[in-house]
């Protein structure tokens, strides 16, 4: 019951955030200097043709009407029409790229979450000893490398040097991502580099603080073996903050995706955003940014719920049986 109440409340907040976000993104992008119609037609266009296009695109309508039209379209699942590729519905290109990026993000998550938890826990248990020092330093070093730097290192080693993985990511025509999973490896690894450092350090410190908790002392002094205490008593509590951290870092992950996808030419949401920005394709920029935001908010919501579900202190209210 308590959980359901929290679920409903958070869901409400999440939807509110997305709504506010959509307003923010719309206005942010729309108030940017530069006439959209002029952008479409180019500098050589006559005033007459600019005016005609403005009228057709409804650019002279008040801002709030345009927002409502745009947001309404979004709710109906209509992302609008690309400015740059006139006549092309954004829907037709957008979801495929989103799918690719989601697969890439999930692959990266699959790489770095187990890895960093494993090493973070290990370092936390060995606090102050050699393995801790090594893991912490490696984590710090990988965390300090921006994705494009680690990406270039990976390219140099695996693609240029060993030639076992592709430098650039294309999906041959008629095939899909599943038939080309090898293009995921280097981009996912580049993200893993950064995130590994971050998450493993967080995991380590939460493990260290949990290992210092009174209930761990109590468990050890109850005569429980150390390994049992670590896995049965400490781990669950130490994982809770990590879940939040992973959720909070989805934003960083998606920032990283843009860099990585640009570096590898991966056909995903990141490179789509980049190309939308480069071509000033306003509706496409809006769709991309809103969707990135949506994923982030949704990830936060999911981790929050997961956290609440795994944490009996939130799941059960005091006094409930």
């Amino acid at each position, binding site marked *: 019951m308590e959980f359901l109440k929290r679920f409903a409340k958070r869901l409400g907040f999440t939807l509110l955030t997305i709504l506010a976000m959509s307003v923010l993104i719309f206005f942010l992008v729309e108030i940017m200097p530069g006439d959209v119609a002029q952008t479409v037609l180019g500098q050589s266009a006559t005033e007459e043709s600019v005016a005609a296009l403005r009228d057709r695109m409804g650019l002279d309508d008040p801002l709030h009407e345009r927002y409502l039209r745009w947001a309404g379209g979004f709710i109906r699942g209509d992302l609008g029409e690309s400015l740059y590729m006139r006549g092309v519905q954004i829907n037709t290109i957008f979801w495929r790229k989103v799918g690719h990026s989601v697969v890439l993000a999930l692959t990266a998550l699959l790489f770095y979450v187990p890895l960093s938890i494993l090493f973070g826990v290990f370092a936390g248990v060995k606090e102050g000893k050699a393995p801790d020092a090594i893991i912490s330093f490696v984590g710090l070093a990988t965390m300090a490398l921006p994705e494009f730097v680690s990406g270039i290192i990976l390219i140099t080693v695996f693609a240029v040097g060993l030639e076992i993985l592709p430098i650039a990511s294309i999906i041959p025509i008629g095939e899909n991502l599943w038939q080309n999973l090898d293009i995921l490896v280097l981009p996912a690894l580049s993200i893993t580099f950064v995130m590994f450092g971050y998450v493993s350090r967080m995991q380590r410190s939460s493990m260290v603080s949990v290992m210092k908790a009174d209930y761990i*002392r109590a468990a050890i002094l*109850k*005569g429980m073996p150390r390994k049992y205490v670590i896995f*049965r008593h400490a781990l*669950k509590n130490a994982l809770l903050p990590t879940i939040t951290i992973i959720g909070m870092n989805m934003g960083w992950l998606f920032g990283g995706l843009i860099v990585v996808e640009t570096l590898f030419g991966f056909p995903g949401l990141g490179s789509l955003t980049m190309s939308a920005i480069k071509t000033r394709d306003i509706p496409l920029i809006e769709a991309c940014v809103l969707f990135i935001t949506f994923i982030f908010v949704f990830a936060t919501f999911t981790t929050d719920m997961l956290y609440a579900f795994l944490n*009996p202190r939130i799941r*059960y209210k005091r006094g409930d049986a």
Partner: protein
Amino acid sequence: MKTEPVLEIKELDVAYHTLTDTVVALKGVSLSVAKNEALGIIGESGCGKSTLFYAIMDYLPVSSSRSGEILFKGEDLVVKTPKQMTKFRGSKIAMVYQNPYSSLNPSLTIGFQLEEVSMFHHGMSRKEARQAAVETLSDLHLGDAAGIVRRYPHQISGGMQQRICIAMALLCKPDLMILDEPTTALDVTTEAVILDIIKELKDKYNMSLIYISHDIGVVNKVSDRIAVMYRGEVVEFGNQNTIYKKPEHPYTRALINCMPRAGVLKENTQLNTIPGYVSRRSAAETGCPFVARCEKRNATCEEKYGMVERKPDHFSACDRAYATDIPDKVLSKEAGSIPEGAEPEHKTILKIDNLYKYYGPHGKRIRALDGVDLTLDRNNVLGVVGESGCGKSTMGHTISGLMRPTRGKIIFDGTNISVSWRKRSPETLRDIQLIFQNPGRSLNPSFTIENIIGRPMLKLLGIKSKQKRRKLIVDILKKVDLGEEYLFRRPKQLSGGEMQRAAVARAFSIAPNLLVCDEPTSALDASVQASVLNLLVDLQKDSGAAYIFISHDLNVINYLSDYIMVMYLGRICEYGKKTEVGGSPRHPYTEALLSAVPDVDPSLKRGEIRLHGAPPNPTKKIKGCPFAGRCHRKVGSVCDTTPPPRVNFSDTHFAYCHISPEVLNSEISVKGIKK
């Protein structure tokens, strides 16, 4: 009762090594606990009580060293490997900790945490273990044992949590149970119940106990023998009565004299204080650990020092407690000594009328104050006592302006000040000062003492000249026994007692007329508490200010107050002069509270009223008497439905209760504190 000892510690030394030096935590500790015996260990913070306990369990930090012998039923635990130790831990030696909530894993059910003990040590299946857990829980008078095992720790109250911890320790029927301040975090009535349970189970399970506490009163309730520790050493060890009545070691004597206790009142006795503070001990130090602070010290203290069985079964490292070559400090005052001149004026300075304070969002409102009236005269000390959540601090904060009352009036010196600090005049702000519980948190760590004391002078007295302020600050520092050199120190460089004295200096630096003290000594050790209490008494006498002294400790309240007000769940239970409330309590709750108070003097025996259950949810509106649910003298349904009427016993003494005044007057079921 001389049997083979269950635990015998011989010459145990423990030291912690830091990068630069070595700190001695335990030195030459020798103790023994017989079968079914309860040993109490008392001492101030930093004296090595907890280290002793961790040393027995082999749970010391990596950077420490341990030497000596710890014989548990003849086996030396010091030489056991960590793996071998798991056979003892939890099974033969079990522990109960100070903070039950943090000692239970928040993400595992209570049942799981109980079951694993039996599963590991007795190889039971989960089902058998569950059965064992439920059985043990019912030994602790936990009603719905089968339901509790399915819950998580946060779902039950603090008293219940501690019972779970005790049950967990009992599961394997240990030979020895070590309790480290198990009731310190609990309210006094809950504490009494837990202590009863511990006593009862000790005999039922035929085990030995080591009970560690800073509070002699608590230790007295469960232990047979008492060991007094100071700076890592056991300085005295013997039967509880002898320790209280005829201590051999000057430290023991000084410590007992520091404690507010039955029969000791501000009118007749000044509390003893021990100068200086507990310092860290280096490896090079030899001789008596107390010598630097001892008023009975002489030239022989270095050589003649060492644990000796002074009397049968009474060991002490020193026998100069009552040495006559150095006279005792004068401890008693002339009875009722009142400063020269006329009777001090008794003008009413504060009047509170029907005060309400609610917090929190609608629907979850906590009724912290639920209709409180009181009047306070100049020169008087009102002691407010009650358990946590009774609204005593809220009242203090409302009066001092930190909070605005929800309803009701606070009249101070003729003006209505029932507003928050923002709307009070500078005069009111100056006139009412507040002393907080935790001196470490009430002094801004970024400022020097000069800034801390000087700021109110600048702000509220408008003394602009820095020189002038400094002179005044030095004066007030002297009054609180701090020298000029403290001007430039920061709070972190001060000990707890010094900090609280600086806080008192800050309050008095602007000559307030009303001082609200919110548990000002409860974070302090006994010896430090005494010095602060003395200081407050002296300053009050000099300034004529009125005090509202808030505390959960009836001994302290009784020592310091002129009037006592007992609160329960935001309402007044009983109010009267100290002699009236303390000597002949009328309200059932006051009775229960008094009966639960741990006494420093082990020979005092009080009535045994035990309160069960927990106070009702403070967010619920209570129609009748808030105490009705736990009352041992409940009249009937009227208690639940009608607010109790005010019953006057004298001009100054009244209570709110449904029991008829005649009954209340005649049946005094509890012996008062008065001796």
